[in-house]
């Protein structure tokens, strides 16, 4: 029996919905569910997007918080499932509402979703001073991105931002979540590249922006997509509400030099901005990478010919694979995009086929012994424990618990250099 071949269990829409709301700087999820669903999400939300300076569990020892500052819960038990959670909901809503949040989302756990308690009625009767809405069901085993987008759209419906007059060259960034590895550093990098091209980021849906920023999203000229899997339902909604067109790069997320340049050029072209400042930054990064690579390559012959495996969403896997292949001369031996299937996945399959690497598609990485593995820490650890001396570069969650003090980026010029640094030091 080879238990190491059992599939990795990825988060579903329930986690996606919670992370969407917890990604709004001043919003809070109130979980109508058991503590078993609370502790994990409370820990991940706090780890990915900390909001309090210190963590003294006694400050959060009150009912519903269980020592964690995030994701208070009604701690449903068997009795509540039978008789309903009326009393707890009546008690918890004012407690959470007085914590100073600008938005509260009551999210049903999968079990609570089956009972059908009328959450909207409780919210209405509570007469809270804070905008509050309910997500009765985040689906069952739907994708993370589906739950994420459902929650974003529900939040926007409640906040009801109005169409505003466009102010200069501006965009909303769509398709980023706090569940993305190094999301803060990546966001900083993208905002920087856009800023030097004269493009203002009005809001980020939903990774780091506050309620006030989200209310102003109607003033952005376009919605600029980062990871399309996390945006393909939100952007039609925004177009319908605000008439905003979306900008989606056919090369995927801005990973590596070429995809980043294509992403920047596309947005600059659409908003009539000059891409050259960002291109200069990219040129400098390319130059820096060449200097490092030439020395490294002359001594080792690497990274050319080193093999790699990627386990990521298609919008990430496509540009990463292309960059590793074309810029560094590395060879894909295992490319997996999970159960997400979109245009990027099709392009990626064709790319692999065109480059003679067709067999890499959905190949089990453990069977092909890659030199470098890109994925979650679980993906990497499993390969290592199969006895493979793989160089692991974690590009998705869960991580290994390493706390990043200096923000890293996986996207843009800085992202390409970060990946390069990891590769050459590993090889």
């Amino acid at each position, binding site marked *: 029996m080879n238990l190491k071949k059992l599939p990795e269990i990825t988060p*579903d829409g329930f986690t996606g919905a919670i992370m969407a709301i917890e990604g709004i700087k001043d919003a809070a999820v109130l979980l109508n569910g058991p503590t*078993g669903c609370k502790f994990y999400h409370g820990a991940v939300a706090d780890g990915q997007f900390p909001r309090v300076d210190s963590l003294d569990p006694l400050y959060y020892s009150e009912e519903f918080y269980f020592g964690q500052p995030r994701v208070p819960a009604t701690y449903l*038990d068997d009795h509540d499932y039978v008789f309903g959670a009326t009393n707890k909901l009546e008690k918890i809503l004012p407690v959470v509402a007085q914590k100073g949040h600008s938005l509260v989302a009551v999210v049903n756990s999968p079990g609570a979703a089956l009972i059908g308690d009328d959450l909207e009625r409780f919210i209405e009767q509570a007469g809270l001073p804070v905008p509050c809405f309910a997500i009765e069901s985040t689906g069952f085993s739907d994708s993370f991105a589906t739950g994420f987008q459902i929650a974003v759209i529900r939040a926007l419906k409640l906040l009801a931002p109005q169409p505003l007059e466009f102010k200069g060259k501006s965009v909303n960034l769509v398709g980023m979540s706090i569940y993305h590895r190094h999301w803060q550093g990546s966001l900083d990098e993208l905002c920087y590249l856009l800023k030097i091209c004269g493009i203002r980021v009005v809001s980020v849906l939903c990774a780091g922006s506050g309620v006030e920023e989200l209310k102003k999203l109607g003033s952005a000229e376009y919605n600029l997509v980062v990871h399309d899997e996390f945006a393909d339902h939100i952007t039609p909604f925004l177009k319908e509400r605000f008439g905003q067109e979306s900008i989606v790069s056919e090369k995927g997320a801005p990973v590596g030099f070429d995809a980043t340049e294509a992403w920047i050029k596309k947005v600059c072209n659409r908003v009539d901005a000059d891409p050259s400042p960002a291109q200069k930054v990219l040129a400098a990064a390319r130059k820096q990478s060449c200097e490092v690579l030439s020395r490294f390559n002359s001594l080792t012959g690497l990274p050319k010919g080193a093999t790699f495996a990627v386990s990521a969403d298609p919008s990430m896997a496509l540009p990463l694979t292309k960059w590793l292949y074309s810029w560094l001369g590395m060879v894909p031996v295992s490319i997996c995009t999970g159960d997400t299937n979109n245009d990027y996945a099709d392009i990626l399959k064709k790319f692999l086929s065109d480059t003679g690497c067709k067999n890499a598609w959905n190949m089990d990485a453990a069977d092909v012994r890659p030199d470098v593995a890109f994925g979650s820490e679980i993906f990497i650890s499993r390969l290592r424990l199969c006895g493979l001396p793989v160089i692991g570069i974690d590009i998705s969650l869960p991580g290994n*618990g390493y706390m990043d003090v200096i923000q890293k980026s996986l996207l843009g010029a800085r992202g390409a250099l970060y990946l390069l640094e990891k590769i050459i030091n590993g090889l």
Partner: protein
Amino acid sequence: MRIAIYGKGGIGKSTITANLAAALADQGKHVLQIGCDPKHDSTRLLLNGKRVMTALDYLRDVPPSRQRLSEVFHTGYKGVVCAEAGGPEPGVGCAGRGILSTFALFDRLGLKTEEFDVILYDVLGDVVCGGFAIPLRKGFADIVYIVTSEEFMSIYAANNILRGVKNFDESPYRTAGLILNSRGETEDREKVYRFSEAVRLPVKHTIQRSNLFRKAEELNKTIVEAFSESSETELFQTMARGFLDNNNLFAAAPLEDEALEAIVLKGGIDTNKKIDHDILESNSAEKENSGKEEPGILSVSDQENGLAGSVFLSKSMLCREPLHGCAFTGAICTTTQINDSITVVHGPRSCSHIACQTILAGGLRALYQKNVIIPEQLFPSMLSSDMDERVVIYGGKDDLIKKLRQAIAKKPQAVFLLTTCPSGLIGEDPESAIRIVSSENLGIPIIPVTTDGNLRGDYMQGVLNACMEGAGALIDPCACQEDNLVNVIAEKNIANNTEINFAVISKLLNKLGITVNCRFVRRTSIKALRGFLKGRLNLPAFNDYFGRVMIDFLKERFQVSFAQNSFPIGFYESERWLKEIAAFFGKEAEAERIIDFFREEYRAMIKPFRNALEGKRIMIITYIHDTDWILETAFDMGMEVAKVCILNYSQDNLFFTRYSDKFEVETNYLPQKRDDDLRRLKPDLLLYNYTPQNLPLDLHADIIPLCPDVGFYGGLVFARRWATLLKSPVKEGWKYEFEKIA
């Protein structure tokens, strides 16, 4: 004999059931009637109108430790035992879940069905969710009667009930027939007869409309009691005899809706046309193997008989405290510690993901922080059925069967099946899926563990259930003890230092020539579990509540011997522990030699720390109730203990110290008292379970772990730390800065 009487709400099934119970009692039978209807009036007439505490109200209002079956079972007419499930107010909660909870309660409180001649389940038939189908499961009703009137909606409900029966149908078939409760002479009974013919089910009895029912109700009695000489009573007596003597059983053959309407409403059966029976055959309608079971295979019935649901409750369950975590996660963190097994999770992917992350967090921490590889926590061997929207509406037996087959195909030595809240809430019957897959795969046991997410308890309850029902089910009662072998019990799978502690313990045991046979349940194997009884002595890692429950369970089930002392921390405990084990195995002299060796080393090792710590004052505020290892270290270093403050902690209330006269102690300590105590006692060092914030004066503070390192030098780690800590500035620069910016 267990009979379920189903029917549309308001059709009169409760009156009929109560009268049948009374008639059966008249015939000297010991009868139990269970009302499975939220309006809880099934047994009212048997109890002469007395409204009784329902099982669900009882479950809600009485803590588990005080619950007794006798308080939800009420004796009525001629000794008929009556119980009502009850249910929530209309519009909230889930009545179906209530039925599931009711039967789980009866099971936990030890209902012995064999003590009754007849058990009658009076069940609402309008609702078709899993909860109301409980009496149809294996182990419940052997016989099903359906009450109907001449009205179409009543017949429609009867047909729906047949669909439910069919979904659960196992050979031999269980449907006995229809009971026609007539609305009056003017009604068209032909509808019922046509339906009867079409579904190939006889109308076993017809009850005529009668004013006596109303009159008996006004007397709060059944007709059988109030009008014992009436023809109606005679009919019930006949029906009761028929129940006992004449139950030809039939397969459930429900009709498709269109056929039902055509036959019942439009009249007549076209004998030339084939009747459209409900052909919504699910794959799971494969006949379950009800025949003989192969020896050596742990069957569901074995588990039902031998390893029934846990009666060992976690502390939170006993005290009705908020549940921390869920039984599902606790159980999977335990079953995934068993190598060569796969745990199948029946639930949405989120449940598996959350549990998986809990397991992996420990594995990754051990790997990256301590360089310890725990494959069980990096490759948790689990498969998720990924329950989706379709499953929560229509049931997921087929998906579960598929997932179990997928697990079996990996050729593990055992499969554990755990369920989540959604699975429990929709009333899934996983054991039915197990029976099907087990019948195809002789040799690989599929072992269910009671979880249903947190419906069956908290994290600790899941750990207990997995140990008892999961790992415990594998223990071979015939294995013989072997010399110099011990088992380790109740290690904590989520603690960071479990492996390091185990290594220390193993080393000490090896010095005595003793080896560990099985870790129950931590990084073990099916083989080790089967041979569990080879261990002559069992060593609890902890004597906390978890440890004590494990000891009680294993002593009760297998009559095994235990060491009194748990894994030792510090010199005193290590010496005592080693001596106890040595005495059991007759190795006292070896133990003395080992202890002398460690004593020499310990004395040498404490010197530098003692120089740094002598005379320093410490104060301790902690959730830990066993602080003697800290105190031993402090006293060995010549420190002064100003005060020990024990915070209230649900898992134990057993503070004890061998140093009771040497310092001030306060149990049930309120954290609000901290600042006054610190100002009064002015300790040099404050020990807490986490680093406290906003102290009223500048002093050194440090943390003490909930699970410290074991062995002779367990306390020395902290002496080294304190000695170093006291050399550091009392307040770090960043804290001054933080105060400015906060």
